[in-house]
Structure formats: structure tokens, C-alpha cells
């Protein structure tokens, strides 16, 4: 079956697979963040936030793959980057990365605090709860997810194409 796969089929499959990894990484990070917000003990919060790294790696690989295979597809199909739906998707890709990075980085420091509190007796801390549930992180991370969703809408409906 694989012997008959054309260049276009390889490119579209790898592009879609990368998009899957990108959104999956976001789901991993979002699910673990929400779970951490519901916990009290610093050791539990540290355990959950510690696993977010895997989601970030997945999202990073996916975002590189989507742009590389996406650009190769544009070249292969002789599409113009000036097309509205393509330039909007590219802009949203950049916005998604920027929001995800800005929302995710502070969580690393929250994890350090949780690990420190876990080592110092593992007592619930108001400061830790406030920092893990800070609305700004949620808004930035959800914003990043919404940008990916908007890219998916553009890729399926291709308005103006």
C-alpha cells in the first residue's frame, strides 16, 4: 500500500499528523493544568505539572511539522502565500505559539514552587493555589487552543480559495 503513495499524499499525511500532534500536545498540557488546579497538596500539583513537559515537546514537534510540511505542500501545489486563508492560517500559527509560550512558561516556575513546598512538609499553600490557578495563564493557553481551532476551520473550509 505504501509503495503507491504519491508525494502529495505523503505531504498531506505528514502535515495532518503534525497538526494532530500540535493539538494533542495542547490537550495534554491543558488537561494536566486543569487537574493541577483542582489539587491542594504541593506534591500532587508538582506531579501533575511535571508531566506537562511531554505535552510541550509534542506541541513543539507538531508545530514545526505543520509549518515545514505545510510550506512543502504550498510549494508542491503551487499555491500563493498571499491567499487570504493561507496568510490568516500562518498568522494564527504564530499567535498560537506566542500565546502558548507566554501561558506555559510561568507554569514552570509554579512547578518549582510546588516542588519546594512539597519538600518543606507538603502543606497546602494559598500562594501556590493562587499561582497555579492564575486566570492569565488560562486565558493565554485557551487563546492558543482557539487559534489552533481557527486554523483547522480555515484548512477545512478554505474561505476565498
Amino acid at each position, binding site marked *: *500500500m*505504501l509503495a*503507491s*503513495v504519491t508525494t502529495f*499524499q*505523503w505531504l*498531506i*499525511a505528514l*502535515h*495532518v*499528523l503534525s*497538526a*494532530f*500532534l500540535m*493539538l*494533542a*500536545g*495542547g*490537550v*495534554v498540557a491543558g*488537561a*494536566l493544568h486543569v*487537574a493541577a488546579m483542582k*489539587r491542594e497538596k504541593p*506534591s*500532587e500539583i508538582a*506531579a*501533575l505539572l511535571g*508531566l506537562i513537559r*511531554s*505535552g510541550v515537546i*509534542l506541541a513543539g514537534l507538531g508545530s514545526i511539522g505543520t509549518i515545514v510540511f505545510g510550506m512543502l505542500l504550498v510549494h508542491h501545489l503551487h499555491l500563493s502565500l498571499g491567499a487570504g486563508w493561507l496568510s490568516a492560517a500562518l498568522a494564527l500559527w504564530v499567535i498560537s505559539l506566542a500565546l502558548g509560550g507566554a501561558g506555559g512558561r510561568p507554569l514552570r516556575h509554579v512547578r518549582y514552587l510546588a516542588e519546594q513546598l512539597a519538600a518543606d512538609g507538603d502543606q497546602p499553600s494559598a500562594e501556590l493555589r493562587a499561582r497555579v490557578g492564575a486566570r492569565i495563564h488560562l486565558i493565554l493557553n485557551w487563546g492558543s487552543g482557539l487559534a489552533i*481551532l481557527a486554523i*483547522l*476551520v480555515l484548512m*477545512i*473550509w478554505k474561505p476565498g480559495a
Partner: protein
Amino acid sequence: MRSDTLLFLHVLAAMVLLGSAVTVAIMLVAVTRRIDDVARAGLLLHFAYRLNMLVTIPATVASIGFGEGLKAKADAVGTWLDVGSGLTYVGVLVGALVLHGFLRRGIAATEKGHAPSPSTMRGAASIAPAIVTAILVIAFLMSGKPA
């Protein structure tokens, strides 16, 4: 429902499904690495159990439902579709249901204050990555449509 809308919902459900399956797999690998930390294992198994039940299984059903609607509307046929559909039913849906049983057994052990048995964790930690692999193969087949 229009084909575009069905495709959007089908892909979205599949993407959420992959995210959820990967999260469960990551948690199970984390539990296996420090199986003697009963409190940590209990926390991660509980979360993996809920995610599997509330997201992975419903997202699989939604993805199948929208996919079947799309198949009927587009009158699609091909080996890629047969292999992809078969893998979704057997590899993902049945896999998630079997995993559900392993997770319940693991949680029952931690609630009694014991570490989950190595055989339970071996089972769970091998099914979860297999589900993730199946989803990636299905995504490749469904988007590339080889042969």
C-alpha cells in the same frame, strides 16, 4: 449536516482523542517508573481513569459517528478506509475499554494502600501507547488515503 461540517467535527474529535490518549499514556508511564509511590500512583491512575472514561471513549465514539456520516455522504471506499475503520473499532475503542478495566484494578489496589500489581501496570502501560500508535496510523491513512 454538510460534508465540511462533518469533516471538521470528525477531525476535531480525533485530535481531542489523540490528546487524551497521549495524556493517559504519559501518566501510566509515569506511574510505572515510580510504582512504589502509592499516593502518586493513586492520583495519576484516578486522573487517567477519568480522562479515559470522560474524554477518550466519548471522543472515539464521536469520531466514529462523524466519520460514518462522512463516509455515507461522500460515498467513500478504499483499503485505507477499511483498514482505518477496523483499527478505530478494534485498536482504539476496544483498547480503551480494556484499558478501563486495567485502570480500575490499579485504582482498587491504591485505595487499599498497595502499589498496583506489576502485571496490571504492564498491561495498562502497554495498551495505552498501542492506542496512541493506532490513532497515529489511522490519522496517516485517513489523510494520505494511500492506494
